[in-house]
């Protein structure tokens, strides 16, 4: 049975004068889902979340929460809550007062309020002694947790996140995104998260929407977005990628657009067939490209010159220039380090089941 979506958007549009920030979004979010909207700055994702929480009016379209329209409801009357990029903790209140703020507004009695605050501190793995601490005494990660506790305090239907980790340093971000995933599992709440980092999105999300110029390019699981992007934009958004412009030759063939690619296998094995003259991009992620020994072979073979080698911690990245002047990226695990010299000729190969064809220019 299909579950009723908790949040449902129909043709949501946001205009600022002549400029359209959000162009007719349709979206259903399932209850309990961790849904992430990823996009570069200016993609409309912040406008999007501000409309969802009620800080921004929709120009047209409708937003429904459990089948009730909420797009005309002001933020303070919506049963949803947002964790701000800046966290927006109240500096003049203690940790406890911050967490209790939404409960106090709802006239909860002080004893229940305190009990709930202590439960939330426990849920977020902060010691109970933090109840009386000042916000300024908390570290970045602790503030993060206080903001989460405050957002969870009145048991909102959906928790929204507006890039709450972007202000933190890299290491803390790494721990906190896992913690957030863990918190999502433990609370069972619906989380809607906004970020510009697809990497962050991949760690946490059940589904990811890639946003570009006010529209969703693709909504899919992390694996699908990584392995089967629908556009060059999506493919390039997530880290390094090698794209070859190709064109259909006959019903079964592919031809590199001026690139020396020998198609040994049958193009239909890619799961798509291109009509003659139809343009596409052939994508292969750097970790699926191999350095071929003279005796080895593979479905696709490309020759080039090894230009550079970068150590990325556990992985080593290589840059290889091929005959058209295009640079390919290859990644190996450190233990599989390639021993070729910089400037030497190399042969690269990759297989049909590791490539993905993106239709269109």
């Amino acid at each position: 049975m299909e579950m009723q979506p908790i949040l449902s958007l129909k043709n949501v549009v946001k205009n600022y004068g002549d400029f359209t920030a959000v162009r007719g979004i349709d979206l259903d979010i399932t209850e309990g889902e961790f849904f992430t909207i990823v996009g570069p700055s200016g993609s409309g994702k912040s406008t999007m979340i501000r409309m969802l929480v009620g800080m921004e009016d929709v120009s047209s379209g409708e937003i429904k929460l459990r089948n009730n329209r909420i797009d005309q409801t002001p933020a303070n009357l919506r049963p949803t809550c947002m964790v701000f990029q800046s966290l927006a903790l109240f500096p003049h209140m203690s940790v406890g007062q911050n967490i209790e703020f939404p409960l106090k507004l709802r006239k909860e009695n002080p004893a229940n309020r305190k009990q709930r605050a202590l439960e939330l501190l426990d849920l977020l793995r902060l010691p109970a002694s933090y109840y009386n601490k000042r916000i300024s005494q908390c570290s970045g990660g602790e503030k993060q947790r206080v903001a989460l506790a405050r957002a969870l305090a009145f048991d909102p239907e959906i928790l929204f996140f507006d890039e709450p980790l972007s202000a933190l340093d890299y290491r803390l971000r790494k721990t906190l995104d896992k913690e957030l995933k863990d918190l999502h599992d433990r609370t069972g709440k619906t989380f809607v998260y906004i970020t510009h980092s697809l990497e962050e999105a991949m760690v946490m999300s059940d589904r990811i929407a890639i946003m570009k110029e006010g529209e969703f390019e693709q909504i899919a699981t992390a694996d699908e977005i990584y392995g089967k992007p629908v556009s060059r934009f999506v493919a390039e958004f997530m880290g390094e990628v090698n794209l070859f412009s190709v064109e259909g030759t006959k019903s079964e063939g592919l031809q590199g657009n001026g690139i020396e690619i020998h198609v040994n296998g049958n193009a239909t094995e890619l799961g798509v067939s291109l009509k003659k003259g139809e343009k596409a991009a052939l994508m292969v992620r750097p970790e699926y490209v191999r350095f071929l020994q003279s005796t080895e072979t593979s479905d696709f073979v490309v020759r080039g010159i090894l230009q550079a080698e970068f150590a990325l911690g556990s992985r080593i990245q290589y840059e290889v220039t091929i005959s058209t002047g295009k640079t390919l990226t290859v990644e190996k695990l450190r233990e599989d380090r390639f021993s070729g010299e910089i400037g030497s000729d190399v042969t690269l190969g990759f297989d049909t089941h590791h490539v993905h064809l993106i239709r269109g220019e």
Partner: protein
Amino acid sequence: MERLDRKLGIFSALPLGVILLVCFLAPLLVVAAFSVMPERVFDLKHIPDFSAYSVFFQQGYYKSLFWSLGMALISTVVLFLVCWPLAFGMAKVFGKFSLVLTIAVVMSLFVSENIRLFGWVLTLMKGGLFEGYLRSITGYGFDSPLYDTPIIIFGLVYVYLPFMLFPLAQGISMVPDDARQAAADLGATRWQILRQIDLPLAAPGILVGSLLSFVLAAGAVAESKILGGQSIIVIADDIESAFTFGQNWPLGAALSMVLILIIGVFAIFGVSRIDLDAIMGRKR
């Protein structure tokens, strides 16, 4: 290096320190010394007898003190209520227009306070700008609002508006927008945001503005003289009379000391409660 910094700090503070000592602290000490002298003496070579202070209570000078403090208090409250919406607009809503408003308010300071107050007298007096025109057109006039307590408070509000407005706007601009939005998102109404977020976070500005207007209004004399027509005698008026017509310097000095003491307590209490560095935007 740090030691050199400290030395340079002392040297650069020296000129201002000397000015403060000679022009501010020294007269204060002279006044304090005179206040304990016997009545009607013109030098400090007498045995202190504190008799001037007893006159303060005997002759009802405390009444003018109460009028001064009372009207200062009321005008400060009115100023706060009048300035809050304006300051909020300047800090959060008006954008570039707030510069125009700032210039307009500051411009009024270019004209002497007394001249501006006389302007109001001409406007409000019987047969003046308002009443005179009204009577010549309609045949009906009204009594002048001048020479009464409310008009004095109006005068105080009018003259000291910038001293409340600008600190208040500064205080409100220190309230982070996202804290206000977060409060709304968590369920707060506008009224709740005002009470629980805006007022506490703008408190330094409120305190500075209130302190400035209160202190200035408590020592004000022109409003009660010009607009009030001396229907109310304020403490500053008494002090002036004691030094001039009364030729009783110790009495004037004693009255000054009482006023300085009361206002000093308010000021020190107020300033100790706020972080001036935060308001001035200085990093520590």
